[in-house]
């Protein structure tokens, strides 16, 4: 959906229906409505976590120094997936 929406066709929906109801597919679609755009917009606003790793409340300048211009979460270090033990 995000990278190559032209690849989504009838067969994609046939495969989705093997696993999900039409209600579930509608729900996933609505979830994507908001996630596709808001990550880009919020990314442009350049705001940083309010708290340092040690729990201190920090201002945006200090947070930017702590977390850097390229947050670890964008490099694949953002967290663990359910079931992988992390």
């Amino acid at each position, binding site marked *: 959906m995000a990278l190559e929406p032209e690849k989504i066709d009838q067969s994609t929906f046939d495969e989705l229906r093997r696993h999900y109801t039409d209600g579930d597919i509608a729900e996933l679609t609505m979830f994507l409505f908001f996630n*596709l*755009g*808001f990550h880009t917009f919020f990314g*442009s606003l350049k705001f940083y976590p309010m708290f340092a790793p040690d729990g201190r409340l920090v201002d945006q300048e200090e947070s930017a120094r702590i977390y850097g211009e390229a947050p670890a979460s964008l490099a694949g270090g953002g967290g663990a997936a359910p079931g992988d033990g992390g």
Partner: protein
Amino acid sequence: MAFLAPKPMDQIEDGDLRRLIARCDELGVPDARFGQILAHKPAQAKAALGAIVHSHFEGNVDHRLKEIIRIQLARLAEDAYFASLRSRKALAAGLTEDMIAAGCGDYEDSPLFGDAWKCALAFAEQMVLDAAKVDAAFYDEMKRHFSEAEIMEIGAFIAIHFGVAKATRPLNLGPAACPGR
């Protein structure tokens, strides 16, 4: 043919959702068919439709500008359905197809728009094509024309309506029948 079939209105039991779908049809964006597709999941449909409608029809930013941006975003997402819709409120306020064409094309050189609208149109276009260009200098330019509340209104509007167009395209709805055009 849409890959998810619209749910017939007489099968939508939630009265609030039926009224919201009817309101969408009156506004022109989105039309009833879109709401009927989302109605396969009624609770989420009410929240999603509510956000789509509120972000477009409420707020402080000129509704005609938002309508041009919405169509610009739908065209960038190559979504024929949302690109074909027109807000009746925007048309009544004087929005023309010439303005829409200019907004989706070479808006920078268009005599139809002032600097504020051109800046907002660039905001939407760059958010989609090259978000890295929406930097501190770009926001400084936006602040010359809009309050921070208005910038948030436009930014959230772009986020919602680009995501909606992008996620709607694969549903294969095709162009809508648009009264008033």
